[in-house]
């Protein structure tokens, strides 16, 4: 390695092309973000400070003084902390078994683990509700509308986040450090505690922060499982808006929610930067056949995969075939009829979901590509790098700001000129694209950032202009992540419920909205239809993700 004072990695000039061209490429996503995220959310927050047409803290004070608010906040934090703890404690052994050990069926096990994360929240809620219902498999445990039930569902969701994030690092951790500690006389437990876990700490912290974020902003699953007794700030915003029509209370709660997710997002960002550094240090992928000493980790992982992940899914499928007249496909046959209070059938709702999903995916991936290209550049000047870091953080915001806030914000801001889209269905794909955008960027960006800047330089010195560099060097790399990005966007959109529940119109509901309606209505018939519709939605989402992973990069992807 040559020893220039600052290596070529940190400095970069000449081959980036015209900065104005990059600014133009960034302008479209930034404008989109401003119009469909910053403006609605800001307007919503501002509304919390307006009482009877005047600026006032009264509305916020009223909400903050209500014991109910503090109960909801305490519940949100308790659920998030327990959900995060459960995911980490169970996920770390899972990461070891699934990414560091070699055994027949590992591919299948990894696939099974990755399914829950992309399952629609409403479907997961319905699956666990079916499990805990008095007639369900675990009906005798009394977990219906319980904290334990909600935490179990949250772990179900986020287990794969920990397994994949930690596993990605663990599979590339150089085993020689562990070997060295062993030859120095450390037992397996001591090696784990003093060498392995400290090396994994950034990944574990990053996964934990992300899981906390997801748990703290959980909506659909808590709405279905929590009933009257349990909620999150998210469900409370929904409740205040749609049930009590108290917009200023909802706005005040949105501010509270922003504070919670803002804090966890900052922690997640800090740990992510540390993890990207750590990953660069690691070597090739390593795994070893299972040993007898792996038994505890294997048992824990098998119990989690079978008991916590597979069982609810199997139970959901089973329940979808249970009808008043015994086992049969009657619930599926009923999907062709009008669903609950809606005039449309489940199949029509599914068609709506697919059309909206396609539009949302196109938007999210198109914008995500632009954002990723721009963010993957390394400007030579310090102010340029600062701008880049800011843009990076800004595009992660929708990940933290709750979908409910986005949907609610749309509802109150985009209903008058210059943007009167209230009656238009395009609001839904736009909102879903905002929710999916951070996932798309997080999927594409690592592949683009992994490109050695000297590849760009080599291409430039060979005579390729900035356009040709993007087309021949960046794009082939981006394409490797594109399948996964499309999959994430489409699956997110298919299952999106938080924002959609505000924006969906009765004549054009999406499938998750219909399922939520059905599960809330009395009668075995509605329950059966909800089960069958959930299975349809889950299978579709799993298919989309399976396809995306199949065409996507073969490397392990954190999430």
């Amino acid at each position, binding site marked *: *390695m040559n020893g220039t*004072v600052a290596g*070529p990695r940190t400095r970069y000039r*000449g081959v980036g092309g015209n900065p104005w061209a990059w600014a133009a490429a960034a302008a479209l996503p930034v404008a989109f973000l401003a119009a469909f995220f910053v403006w609605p959310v800001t307007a919503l927050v501002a509304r919390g400070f307006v009482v009877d047409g005047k600026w006032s803290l009264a509305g916020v004070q009223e909400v903050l003084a209500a014991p109910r608010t503090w109960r909801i906040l305490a519940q949100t934090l308790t659920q998030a902390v327990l959900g995060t703890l459960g995911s980490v404690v169970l996920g770390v052994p899972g990461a070891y078994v699934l990414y560091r050990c070699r055994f027949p069926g590992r591919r299948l096990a990894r696939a099974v683990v990755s399914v829950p994360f992309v399952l629609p929240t409403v479907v997961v809620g319905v699956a666990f509700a079916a499990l805990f219902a008095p007639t369900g498999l675990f009906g005798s445990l009394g977990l219906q509308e319980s904290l334990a039930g909600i935490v179990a569902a949250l772990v179900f969701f986020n287990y794969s986040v920990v397994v994949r994030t930690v596993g990605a690092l663990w599979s590339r951790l150089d085993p020689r450090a562990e070997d060295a500690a062993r030859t120095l006389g450390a037992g397996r437990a001591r090696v784990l505690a003093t060498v392995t876990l400290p090396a994994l700490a950034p990944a574990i912290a990053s996964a934990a922060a992300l899981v906390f974020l997801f748990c703290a902003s959980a909506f659909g699953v808590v709405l279905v499982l929590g009933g009257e007794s349990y909620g999150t700030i998210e469900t409370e915003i929904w409740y205040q808006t749609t049930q009590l029509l108290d917009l200023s209370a909802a706005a005040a709660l949105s501010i509270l929610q922003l504070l919670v997710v803002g804090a966890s997002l900052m922690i997640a960002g800090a740990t992510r930067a540390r993890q990207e550094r750590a990953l660069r240090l690691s070597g090739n992928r390593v795994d070893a056949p299972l040993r007898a000493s792996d038994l505890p980790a294997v048992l824990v992982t098998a119990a989690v995969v079978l008991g916590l992940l597979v069982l609810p899914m199997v139970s959901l499928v089973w329940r979808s075939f249970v009808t008043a007249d015994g086992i049969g496909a009657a619930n599926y046959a009923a999907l062709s009829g009008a669903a609950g209070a809606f005039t449309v059938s489940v199949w029509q709702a599914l068609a709506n979901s697919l059309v909206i999903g396609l539009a949302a995916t196109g938007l999210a991936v198109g914008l995500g590509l632009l954002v990723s290209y721009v963010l993957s550049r390394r400007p*030579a000047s310090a102010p340029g790098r600062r701008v880049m870091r800011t843009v990076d953080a800004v595009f992660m915001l929708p990940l933290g700001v709750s979908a409910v806030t986005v949907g609610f914000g749309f509802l109150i801001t985009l209903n008058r000129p210059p943007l009167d889209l209230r009656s238009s269905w395009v609001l839904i794909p736009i909102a879903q694209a905002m929710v999916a955008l951070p996932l798309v960027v997080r999927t594409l960006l690592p592949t683009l950032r992994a490109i050695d800047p000297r590849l760009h*330089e080599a291409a*430039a*010195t060979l*005579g390729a202009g900035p356009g040709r560099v993007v087309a021949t060097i960046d794009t082939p790399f981006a394409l490797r992540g594109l399948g996964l990005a499309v999959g994430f966007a489409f699956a997110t959109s298919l299952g999106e419920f938080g924002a959609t529940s505000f924006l969906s119109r009765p004549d054009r509901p999406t499938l998750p909205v219909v399922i939520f309606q059905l599960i809330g209505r009395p009668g075995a018939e509605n329950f059966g239809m909800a089960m069958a519709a959930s299975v349809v939605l889950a299978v579709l989402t799993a298919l989309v993700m399976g396809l995306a992973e199949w065409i996507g990069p073969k490397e392990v992807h954190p999430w």
Partner: protein
Amino acid sequence: MVSAGLSVRDAVVRYGPVAALDGVSIDVAPGEVVAVLGASGSGKSSLLRAIAGLESLVAGSVSWHGEDLAAVPVHKRGFVVMFQDGQLFPHLSVAGNVGYALAGKPRRLRERRVAELLELVGLEGYGPRPVTALSGGQAQRVALARSLAANPRLLLLDEPLSALDRGLREHLVGVLDHTLRAAGVPALYVTHDQDEAFAIADRVAVLAEGRLLQVDRPAALWRHPASQEVAGFLGYGPFLAPESAAALGWTGASGVVAVGPDGLVVDAAGTDVPVLQGQARRGGSEFTVRLPDGSRATVRTPDSTAHGRPPASLPVRLEPGGCVLLAGPGQLCS
């Protein structure tokens, strides 16, 4: 006067407050191969990157045939960089990499040129292979073929062989030398390896701490290093004051004597000096001795007595053919 080929004048490159390149001027004439020799951190890579346009100059100029290149972007300069680790495009095959600069040419022509170049670097038939399946040496040969395909006005080689092991390096220096001469491409070859620089270059430039110390033909550089710093970098040492040289049999030296690798020999008629350490070498021994003025020097003998106990002392003298007299008021430091 407008000079033909590359002309760098008073180039300055800064990283923050640190000047990586501090007023360097160097020329590369058409068809000439110039090696830039320097240790880590000497600024040699910065010089190469500045010429390619990958680094901005704070002051000075880079020009080609008298035309200032400040406003010419990297991809329009026609200067190709061959990187230390090849930087082959991993998503393209060998042929795809070699043909990268030939985009837009008719396909038949492109294929023929790629085949020619692969033959030139000794890799005929490798076209369809993925570059990820290549060994380090093969990858560098593909990188060389890819660079030549661009038909560069000037080839900039950034330590192209330093990631390879020694045997392969020596072989590939020969391949590079042959290929560059055959293609007639002027080149600037950056390296920290003296042997590589001497083997390949028409002229060698010695760079230290961002400043150019000396540029000369290899033989002249070796016989007439301009300063003790250059001599030290080329492998001379220790440096003896005239009186110290006289104590070792070289009387009447008019300046500092730089002792080369073969400048001190064992001679029964020489001065007895204490042996500090002995080490076996291929075909002989090497002893570290303390000279009368206190400096350390190594002396080689063809026998392998170091295997046993090294002798307490050895009679040595200076061999004028293996030493050079540094011109000017040499400042002595050990």
